[in-house]
Structures are given as structure tokens and as C-alpha cells.
């Protein structure tokens, strides 16, 4: 990993502490103060955690960040820090400590069939700051699956960054099933080039606190973005998801799909922003978010925001927040199926469209996790 000098780290830490997050404040429902959030102990010397990945497909590079810096510095520089906003609170925290990371490089027209899996692990009570960088050259295609293996009380503050050049297509999926006392914070930022596609899918299932910030900047005509997010706070879990799509130029397309549920005293918040710049004509944006409340104490706030400065665009937005449909439960019941099973069936069905956006390798794991979440009401 790039050597971060002690003085630079101190300065970065100071900026982290003084930068407001702009996120949810504590109140009647939300109980965690994000502004004063710090890791359990700041790591010194060699940070803990580990990164693992399978060997790179032919022509591609998959390596840890230290190796990338040493051996592929020029390639890394084309993506590192390009998509992410360095002024964000948690970006500063990751950058102050990141020693753990992975670099995925796909040369022009390199097409990888099997998903490239990257796994970060942290021991009990350990803090890790993983940083994944993906550079896809012209016409390259791949799916990256990021996993977390966390001990109890672990703290994760990470970044994933994607740069796609013309006609490239990158799908990047993450699903966290962290222990219920862990905290997981991720900033995911991407730039989609001319006629290129970026697909983010993230599932926030575990952790006491999960903050996910997902963004795509559509910088060239023909660029496409797809964001699929699934989150499900139960017991006293808190999940805060922010997605932002920037249509910087015209003839760009985006689709954001968010499905969430909450039970127990689970708290969720979703802020979804679509920005279409003044000259970004003929852009198309779709934002759909649906929330399902499965208990009296559960709460989900959904705040979609469309900021459209161009006049010749297509933008659609729809949001629902609701409980399980009693008529549907009765209907299923009249076919001999017990109420608890009917509820499970409807809740799982609700998530199917978003599960469909994840790579197939995660489908079964997600369904099983959701079954457990629904049953734990």
C-alpha cells in the first residue's frame, strides 16, 4: 500500500474529525451519532486485516495495493482517487489508514466470465480500511464480488473505486453479513466512460451500523449506470444508504433500484439523488425505491431527490413504504399456507427484483440471509 507518512496521516485524521458527515442525526428513531463515530482503536504500525483473491484471469491483473503501487504504478494512478471525492468524511478516514487493498486491472477487450472475488477479513474488535480499485480499459468486461469476513466488534471503513473507459462494462457486487455488533462503512464511487456501463449492487444485511455511499458519474455520452441496493435492518440495527448518480453530459442513462425491509427496532434511511446537468440533454434516469415495514418498532425513511437542470430528459421516480398486504396474506392462506409462511413468501418475493440484479453467485446466499431476517421478527 502507498506509504502514508505519519504527518500526512495525522492531517488526514484531523480533517476526518472536523468534516461533517451530512448524514442522519440522532432522534426519535435513529440512535447512532455518525458525527462522533471513530474506530475502536486507531491502528498503529502494521494494520491488521487481510485481503484474499483468486489468481488473475489471463491478461488481467488482480493484486494487493502494495504490489500494484510497486509494479503497476502508472496503471494504478489512472484510477486511484479519480472517482472518489477526497473531501468526504469517511473517504479521509480510509485514506489515512488504508494499507489493505486490491487492484483489478482489465486491459482493452479483456472479458472475464467468472466473477473476480475479493475478500477482506478483520479479526475480533479489529479495524480495517480496505481500498479496492478497478480499472477497465476500452471494451473490457468483468464482474467483481467483494466479501467481508468479520469478527465480532469489527470496524470497517472502506472505499471501492471504478474507472471504466469506452465500451467497458463492470459489475461490482458486495454483500455484507457482518456480526450484529460490527460497523461497516463503505464509499463506492465510479466513473462511466463513453458507452461504458457500471453496475453496483450492494446488500447490507448485518452490522450494528452500516453506512453505504454509492455513486456513479456519467462523464461521456452513452455512459450507463445501474445501482441495485438491498438493505434490511432488524433488532436494533441501523442502515444508512446514499446513492448519487451524476449525469454530467447528455445521452446518458441510469437506473437505481432499492428494496429495503425492517423488523424489530431496525432503522433505515435511504437518500437517493439523481442530478442531471443543464446541458445533459436526452439523459434518462429511473429511480425506484420500496420499503417494507415488518414490525411496529421498525422505521425506514426514504428520501428521493431529483435535481434536473436540463429540459429534454426522461426521469422517473417512484417510492413506496408499506406493511405486508393483508389481502395477499389472506389469499395465500386460502391455499392452505400458514400465515408465517405467507409472510415469508411475500417478503422474499418483494426482494426478488433486486436480488436478480446481483451476480448469480450471491443469489442463494442472499435469499437464505433474508429468510433468517424475516423469521427473526
Amino acid at each position, binding site marked *: 500500500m502507498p506509504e502514508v507518512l505519519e504527518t500526512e496521516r495525522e492531517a488526514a485524521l484531523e480533517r476526518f474529525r472536523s468534516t461533517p458527515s451530512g448524514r442522519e442525526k440522532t432522534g426519535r428513531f435513529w440512535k447512532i451519532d455518525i458525527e462522533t463515530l471513530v474506530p475502536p482503536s486507531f491502528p498503529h504500525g502494521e494494520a491488521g486485516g487481510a485481503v484474499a483473491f483468486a489468481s488473475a484471469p489471463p491478461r488481467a491483473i488482480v493484486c494487493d495495493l502494495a504490489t500494484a503501487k510497486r509494479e503497476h504504478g502508472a496503471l494504478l494512478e489512472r484510477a486511484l482517487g479519480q472517482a472518489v471525492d477526497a473531501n468526504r468524511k469517511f473517504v479521509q478516514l480510509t485514506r489515512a489508514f488504508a494499507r489493505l487493498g486490491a487492484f483489478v486491472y482489465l486491459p482493452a477487450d479483456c472479458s472475464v466470465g467468472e466473477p473476480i472475488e475479493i475478500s477482506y477479513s478483520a479479526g475480533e474488535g479489529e479495524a480495517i480500511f480496505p481500498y479496492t480499485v478497478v480499472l477497465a480499459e476500452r471494451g473490457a468486461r468483468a464482474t467483481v464480488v467483494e466479501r467481508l469476513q468479520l469478527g465480532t466488534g469489527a470496524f470497517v471503513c472502506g472505499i471501492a473505486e471504478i474507472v471504466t473507459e469506452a465500451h467497458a462494462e463492470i459489475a461490482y457486487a458486495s454483500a455484507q453479513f457482518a456480526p450484529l455488533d460490527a460497523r461497516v462503512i463503505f464509499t463506492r464511487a465510479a466513473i462511466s466512460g463513453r458507452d461504458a456501463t457500471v453496475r453496483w449492487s450492494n446488500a447490507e444485511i448485518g452490522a450494528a451500523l452500516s453506512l453505504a455511499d454509492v455513486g456513479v458519474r456519467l462523464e461521456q455520452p452513452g455512459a450507463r449506470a445501474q445501482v441495485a441496493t438491498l438493505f434490511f435492518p432488524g433488532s436494533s440495527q441501523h442502515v444508512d444508504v446514499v446513492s448519487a448518480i451524476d449525469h454530467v453530459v447528455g445521452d446518458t442513462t441510469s437506473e437505481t433500484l432499492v428494496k429495503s425491509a425492517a423488523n424489530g427496532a431496525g432503522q433505515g434511511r435511504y437518500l437517493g439523488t439523481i442530478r442531471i446537468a443543464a446541458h445533459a440533454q436526452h439523459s434518462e434516469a429511473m429511480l425506484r425505491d420500496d420499503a417494507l415495514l415488518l414490525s411496529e418498532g421498525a422505521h425506514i425513511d426514504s428520501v428521493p431527490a431529483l435535481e434536473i437542470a436540463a429540459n429534454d430528459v426522461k426521469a422517473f421516480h417512484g417510492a413506496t413504504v408499506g406493511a405486508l*398486504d*393483508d*389481502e*395477499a396474506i*389472506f*389469499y*395465500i*392462506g*386460502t*391455499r*392452505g*399456507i*400458514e*400465515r408465517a*409462511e*405467507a409472510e415469508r*413468501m*411475500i417478503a*422474499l*418475493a*418483494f*426482494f*426478488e*427484483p433486486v436480488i436478480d440484479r446481483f451476480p448469480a453467485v450471491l443469489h442463494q446466499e442472499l435469499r437464505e440471509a433474508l429468510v433468517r431476517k424475516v423469521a427473526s421478527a
Partner: protein
Amino acid sequence: MSNTGLRITNLHSSVDGNEILKGIDLVVERGKVHALMGPNGSGKSTLAFSLTGHPKYDVTSGTATLDGEDLLGLSPDKRARAGLFLSFQYPSAIPGVKVPNFLYAARQAVRPGELTPAKFRAQLLSMMDVLGMDPSFLGRYLNDGFSGGEKKRLEMLQMAMLAPKYAILDETDSGLDIDALKDVSESVKALRASDEGAATGFLIITHYPRILEHITPDVVHVMIDGRIVKTGDAELAHRIEREGYDVIREETGAVA
């Protein structure tokens, strides 16, 4: 339990405190077809929902038993497992639940372990053929984006696959074109011709006598204002077609 029928005695039922059923007495025997006719708002659907246990319908007095088993104390799923089926007039759409998965789960709930998945699938495809349903239905979500006719066909498909002891068809004929009506009638006949469905008793709720030209009822009841005011044979349905409900209303002194 003996096959003593679906027996409804002096049933009173309310919705939001308003009494809709004002004492219904009715016995549907195994293997028989009963038609329940009546003008809109007479309480026909209320009877269907009261028997199947919809939480909004409050049975205030009376009894309902299925082959001797008390229905009214059971949850909707237990009533179904006892052998009662309702074909909904407006079935719920459940996006994300695939038609064959749902049918198999329902079949397993109502008649556990009787059919291997392979036999189930063969039976399903053969009944879909009777109903004129394209195999592409198997890839669709339950009632999601279905036309009116498709929904009714799926209700009939469920009935055939569950082979209940007693089936209530709540205005399954309404809104259907001639072809769909014929398919629906064929599915009832196919169920009655099968081993499982030979002894199914039917209560066909309808506003119009049209469906009864395809399925001849053994008994016809006329319901007006929450009461069964007249009972007869198939000829009664023809009379209603010719003369309308007003004549029956006047003849029986039923108040609108």
C-alpha cells in the same frame, strides 16, 4: 368424519358492524353443484369470505361445518387444509412468487406428499392445456400483470391442482369472454372427471346464469338482501334469465 357436506346453519355475518348475512341455511353435498345467484350487493361474496375466514368479515352467529368439522374456529389456511377452496373474484397479485412454485407449495400444504414433483408437473401441464394456458405462464409471477381472463384461469388451475372437497367459485364467470368461459367450464368438468375431484362439491356464485349453460347445477339458490329467498332446480336459473330478479323479489316478499 363423514361426508355430511358443507353445512351452513343460520349464518349471520357483518362487515364494519353492518350486518350483511341475515341467517343463511345451506348444505352443499359432496359431488353436487349448487349455484348461488342474486343481484349485486345481496351478500354472495360475503358468504364466500365468511366461510373462508377473511379477517374483515365478522361471523356474529350461526355455524358452518365441513364434513362435520367446525370451520369458523379455524384460520384460513386450516380451512383450506380441511378441504375448502375459494376462487377469488379479485385475486391478489404477488410479484416475485412464481406460479409453479406457489402451486406446488399450496398442493404440499393441502395434500402433503401425495404427488411427486414430476407427477405434479405432468398434472399441471395437462390442466393448463385444458384451460388454454400457454406454458409461458410457468415463468410468470402470481397474477402479476395478468388480464382478467388470465386471473380467472389461474384460479381454476389452482382449484384443479388442489382438488378440494368443496370449491366456492365467486363470480369466476364475470368479465369473461365466450372462450374464457368455456375454458373455465371445461376445467370444472375435468376436475369432476378426475379421481381426486370426482366428489368435489361446488358452490358457484354468479350474477348471470350464463355459466350454468355450461355446468348444469343440481340446485339453484337465490339470495336477496342477505337471505336465501328461493331454492329450486336448474329451471330456476332459466326463469331468472327470462324474468330477472325483481319478479323473484316480489314473489318472495324480499326487501331490497
